[in-house]
Every structure is written in structure tokens, then in C-alpha cells.
């Protein structure tokens, strides 16, 4: 439950942002990472960006998550999300 997943900030307005999680987009809060900018990569946990990370680390983590949990990781872990706003076609 303490697992956080990497995402890239797509839009940012005040303390709200839209993050891309490998094709799934989610509205999150950046109140815990106030210096974050569009294009930055962050770890997302429970609807909040909790830290900024490097793109290389983010992509490596996604490679691992796909291998360990499968491509449906986000969909499987997020079936009732009130914050999921759209899903891109792969």
C-alpha cells in the first residue's frame, strides 16, 4: 500500500496537476512537491506527488513494474479512481 508509481507532469496549475502514468492520466495534488514543473517526473502515491525523480529512474521503474505486475498495473490497481480523467490508447 505504500507503493508509489512514477508519472510525468502534463499540466500544472497551482497545487493541482495532471500526471501521465504510462498512458493513464490522473489528476493529482502537488502540495507536497511545490517546485514541480510541467515535464518533471514524480512519484505518485494516493493522489499526491511525493517527490521528484529522474526520468531515467522513472522509466526503469516502469520497466520493472511491467515485468513484475504486467501491463495492466495501473488499470488493475486503480479500478475505482475518482481522479482518473482519461485513458490514452496504447
Amino acid at each position, binding site marked *: *500500500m*505504500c*507503493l*508509489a508509481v512514477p508519472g510525468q507532469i502534463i499540466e500544472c496549475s497551482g497545487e493541482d496537476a495532471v500526471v501521465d502514468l504510462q498512458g493513464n492520466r490522473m*489528476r*493529482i*495534488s502537488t*502540495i*507536497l*512537491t*511545490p517546485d514541480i514543473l510541467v515535464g518533471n517526473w514524480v*512519484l505518485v*502515491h*494516493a*493522489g*499526491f506527488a*511525493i*517527490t521528484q*525523480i*529522474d526520468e531515467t*529512474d522513472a522509466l526503469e*521503474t516502469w520497466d*520493472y513494474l511491467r515485468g*513484475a*505486475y504486467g501491463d495492466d498495473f495501473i488499470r488493475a*490497481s*486503480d*479500478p*475505482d*479512481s*475518482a*481522479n482518473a480523467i482519461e485513458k490514452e490508447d496504447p
Partner: protein
Amino acid sequence: MTGEIPTLLVELEALCERIGRRAQFMEVCGTHTVSVFRNGIRPILPENLRLVSGPGCPVCVTAQRHIDAALDIAGRSGVMVATYGDMLRVPGRSGSLETLRAAGARVRVVNSARAALQLAREHPDCDVVFLAVGFETTAPATAAIVLEAERDGVDNLSILMCHKLVVPAMLMLLETRDPGRPGLDGFLCPGHVSVIIGANAYEPIVERHAKPCVVAGFEADQILTGLVHLARQVAQDRATLENVYSAVVSAEGNTVAQKLVDRVFTVVDTVWRQLGTIPQSGHELAPPYRRFDAVQRFELMIGEDEDHPKCRCGDVIQGIVEPWECTLCGSRCTPRSPVGPCMVSSEGTCAAWYKYGRNLPGYSACAEKETGS
């Protein structure tokens, strides 16, 4: 900082041989527990290394009395309970949130604290109660929605506070006597909890108890790197704090999140399921925000826990027994029909053993014994 898995395994084997006795390391975090199983790490560890799963699954350590409080609230009219998915099936004294939902109670699964706040905005006709569980990674999200609710006047939101703190539980394992508890040689410290609290948060464990602490990520090579660093310290008879997840975890942690939590919450003694009260190991709402406290708002009576007499979840999360040593495990208690919380949560030690470890030597020997008897 990490290496190739075969190289790490060779190094770990050599270090364990050098230690010359059985080494016992605790992986504190439930995410580590599951990752160890998912990656098939357990069967390839050196024979004289025991990996003990600790009290790091928030679902597993939420006291039954708090589940009962959530059930009490969910059974009332004009109320909606929101919580994270794993909490639905945790058994209280009588039933679970899932059984109440099936009977018509308004219980919603959320994957974010903000979603609970959103439910309160969308349903001004009812009181939305957020059953807030989780460790330091999750607590800032709860603190943030309390501030947002206060700012926006969302008065129909309240919080049933069940947040827990990791380090006090680790200290308790070292500072209270229990003859059955394994002598731990070091801790594999959680990665994403440490993003918030910072690697330095484990200093008391190293300084007061001379136990090595290594902060590690949750990928296979990161976990093995963490174990190599722990074994190296033991082999060299030293105890330090190391961070092998420094790409993500800083020494100080997320100070913005820490300040937010300090503003909205107060640290208090709290009850952990089957572990009793651990000093300074939980949060309650600080006085300025107490009006969001569900216990106060609903005048709840928080009772006592009354776990199944044979449930050994409390012993499992201290490493006193392995799940398969519990007489309920795999027979009366399964993920489909759980008796104890460690079989409910996807990160619970019992569920992880049941799902991934049934072919491992201890579990299968135990199962054979039961079948024969």
C-alpha cells in the same frame, strides 16, 4: 548502486558464510514482502539467511476496534464510508465493510484521499467518513484533505484516524521482551515511507541498538543490494545507516510533507492489531482540526479487540512464527475467506505466503502434516 542479480547472490552467499551463523533481517515494509515473493527471491537466498516479514502492512496493523468503529458508522443512515480497497474485507468483530456494503450500506473504495474529499463535495446530503489508514507515505494525503476541507468549508467530511508510524514499531521490536521474537541482525527499511521521513529517521535504531539499517527500493536488484549491505555490516561487526535508494530517498525526506503532517496531526500512543499499544506510534488530529475527527463527531465508543483466539497475525508480523505455523492458515483462513488481517491485504505476509510460497519447504511440510492428521 545496485548490481546484477547473480553477482549480488554470490556476494550475499559469501557474506553469510563469513557471518558463520544464521543471520536474520527484517523487511519492514509490506511492499518489500510482496516484491520478495513476486521476484522469487526467497528460494534463492542463502540457507543461513532468514528474511523476517515485519509489521509494515497498514491494513494488517489497523486495530480491530477501529474496524468496528468503521462498521458502526457505516451502519448508520445518512453516512458514507470511504477507504482504500484492502480495508473492505478486514474482519471486525462481526462482519466487514464489504458485508455491510452488500447489505446496502454506503461504502466506497477510493485510491486517493482526495477522492474521499470529492465524495464529500458531491454528496452534501450525507456525512462522508474517510477511514484513513497507512504509514508515513499516506498520512500527508490525509493531512492535505483536512486542510482543503477546512479551507473550502466541506463540513460533511470527517476522518477515522488510523495512521501509524514505522520507526516506533521497529523500536518496540527491539525494546520490549518477548522470548519468541527472533533476534534481528538488521532492518531492510522501506523505500517509499523513507521518501517522506528521510533515511535519517532510522538513526535511533542504529544509535540506540547498534542494528544495521539499509533503505532499499522494491525492485529485485534493489532488495538484494540492500541485503548485501546488511550482511556486509554484520560480517564486519558494524552497524550503520545506509541508503541504497538515494536516487529517490534523501537523508531529510520530504520536509514539506513533514511540516504539513506536523501542523494537522499530533503524535500519540496508538494500538496496533495484536501488538498492543506502541508509544508515540500513531497520529490523531491536532486540536485546531479536531472537529474533523469521526470519533468525536459520531460520539463513537472505541472498544477492545476480540480477535479469533487462534489467529496469529500478531506473531506473524513480529517474526515469532511463519504464517504456515498458524493452525488456521490455508484451511480456515484463506484470501477468499480470511480470519486475520494478514490474509486479507495484498501486502499481508499470510496472503503473500499463500499466493506465492505454498511450494516452499516450510509451508509444504506443514500442509503435508495437516493433511496427514
